[in-house]
């Protein structure tokens, strides 16, 4: 009887120890997960000025942000990046990333790759100063992304080569280029995309659009601006679609 009781107590203790082990393991996994969740939001705050910068950023994960400051989990102010002859290469891979910045540069090369859904990209180039002689390559792969791109709205800007590739659906892209001598090449593949391009104040403007998708809403505008004796505007579109609405305004005047 005594031995039997001891045997029962021993099994019970082993069982309790086993449960404690399982509970500890569970807690340990929970803590690890919590740490992983916390560290998934990479946040880069940039305030940089100077010439000939080479900036390479790879952000891989969920909810990454590049900007100036953060409030309540979202970028609250622009990054600041100023200089000439900049080389910028940014890859953001994941969903719900944000890249919001104000950039002033000349003679720079920019390569942006964004892969994922629900990303927000707001970039204002040359909001002051100038933004001349630059080459931009941007690739977006994913759905429901939002791009607001603005170059030269305040500053003088000349010579822009901009290649934008979008693969995905339900994206909203708004591109304003106020640059003399601007060449803008767009490849837009996907359904229900909303794309607006405004090219202003230039003696030479060229937009080439390769559009493949349905239910798209595309708005293309070219304003030569004022004070020009001659201006050239080219719009070259290739459309593969069963259902698209395309609006083209090509006006020899100010917006």
């Amino acid at each position: 009887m005594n031995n039997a009781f001891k045997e029962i107590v021993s099994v019970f203790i082993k069982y309790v120890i086993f449960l404690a082990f399982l509970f500890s393991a569970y807690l340990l996994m929970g803590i690890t997960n919590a740490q992983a969740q916390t560290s998934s939001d990479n946040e880069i705050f940039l305030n940089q000025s100077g010439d000939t910068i080479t900036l390479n950023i790879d952000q891989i994960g969920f909810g990454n942000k590049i900007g100036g400051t953060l409030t309540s989990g979202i970028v609250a102010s622009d990054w600041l990046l100023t200089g000439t002859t900049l080389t910028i290469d940014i890859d953001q891979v994941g969903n719900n990333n944000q890249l919001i910045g104000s950039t002033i540069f000349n003679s720079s090369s920019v390569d942006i790759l964004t892969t994922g859904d629900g990303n927000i990209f707001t970039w204002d180039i040359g909001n002051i100063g100038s933004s001349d002689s630059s080459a931009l390559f941007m690739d977006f792969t994913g759905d429901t992304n939002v791009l607001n791109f603005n170059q030269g709205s305040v500053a003088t800007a000349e010579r822009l080569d901009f290649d934008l590739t979008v693969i995905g659906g339900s994206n909203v892209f708004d591109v304003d280029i106020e640059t003399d001598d601007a060449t803008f090449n767009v490849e837009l593949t996907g359904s229900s995309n909303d794309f607006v391009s405004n090219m202003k104040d230039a003696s030479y403007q060229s937009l080439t659009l390769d559009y493949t998708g349905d239910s798209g809403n595309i708005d293309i505008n070219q304003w030569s601006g004022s004070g020009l004796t001659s201006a050239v505007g080219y719009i070259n579109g290739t459309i593969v679609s069963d259902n698209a609405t395309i609006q083209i305004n090509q006006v020899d005047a100010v917006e």
Partner: protein
Amino acid sequence: MVLLFQTTRLYKLIKWTLSSSIALLLLTHGTHAAPVGAIGNIIELSGSNGVKRKGGEEIGGALDLGILFEDTLETAQGRMKVSFLDETNLSLTEHSEVTIDEYIFDPDPSKSKLALSFVQGTARFATGRLGLVAKENIVINTPTATIGVRGTDFTTTVDELGRSLIILLPEEECTIDGDCSPSGEITVTNDGGTVVLSEAYAATMVSSFDNAPMNPVVLENITILQIDNMFIVSPPQQVQDQQVEEAAESDATESILDFNELDVDQLAEDWDDDAANLEFSELDINYLDGDFLQNVLTSFEFNKNVLKESSSSGEIDLKGTSYGADAVTGWNVIVDSASGEVRFYRFVGGVISITTSMTNNITLDTENDGKKNFVTNGDGQSVFVTIRQGG
């Protein structure tokens, strides 16, 4: 008595000599007064251009650069507009050259004078509205003709062979209801004769100094804005048609004995009588004419007969414009059966090119400065392209 007579004659001779010398001196001084200072200045410019002085000095174009008597104005990949003291304006398009042969500006318009030589390219000449230079004292020379100005505003194009195309412009832009007053009259004269341009957008072509200027034709579907922005590589179709017609009339009056086989340009002959075999392709588009915002004139460059034959191919269900080039709508429609694509190309008010599947039901709704056209392929209900141009 004899001595007195001789003294009197000597006095008159001296007096006449002195008077003549003073008059000659004044005349000479007056003639060369203009070169002393600038007779005008550059008020607009873009791209590459410059001024060549009489001595050969070459100066890059710059805003407000003073223009001197006997300067030669040159443009390469650029444009230039010069305003003279009498508010006459001279605008040069790309690859143009004009020499200022003479410029005298006097408070008395009858004593003022302006003479220019258009060497090559396209230039627009608008006399000052104040009439500070009497129009009969304005002489414009081209390699093949002399233009007498009784109007205010016209363009001249001189090609590399010296052939000249002259277009009289209206006083103000023509209205839709047809109110279109010319800016006056101009005469075009050479050894072959004289023609008078008296209607807005009246045009004549002069091939050589011996052959009379072509009878004027009035260009249609064109605006001052289009003229301002065009670069005429070859003359408008209406001018070409008139040339062919006049050449045919001339040939009909000749005897068969007048035929000289050497006069026939065999290379220029179109030996393919089967027009239906010819298809409109991208090669038929004269892209040189599309360099600038507006160039309706050159939409007429295509052989309409060939295009109409080709349009019967039935490969696409096109409405609202013709297959190939349509001078009315301005659209060039090119079907590429190999790729299964149709391309709509238009260079009026900017260059727009839309490429889509031959089977795509597309609508092109276009409006340019109030002129509308509506083009569909198929039922037009899949893709809607709305194009608004002008300004």
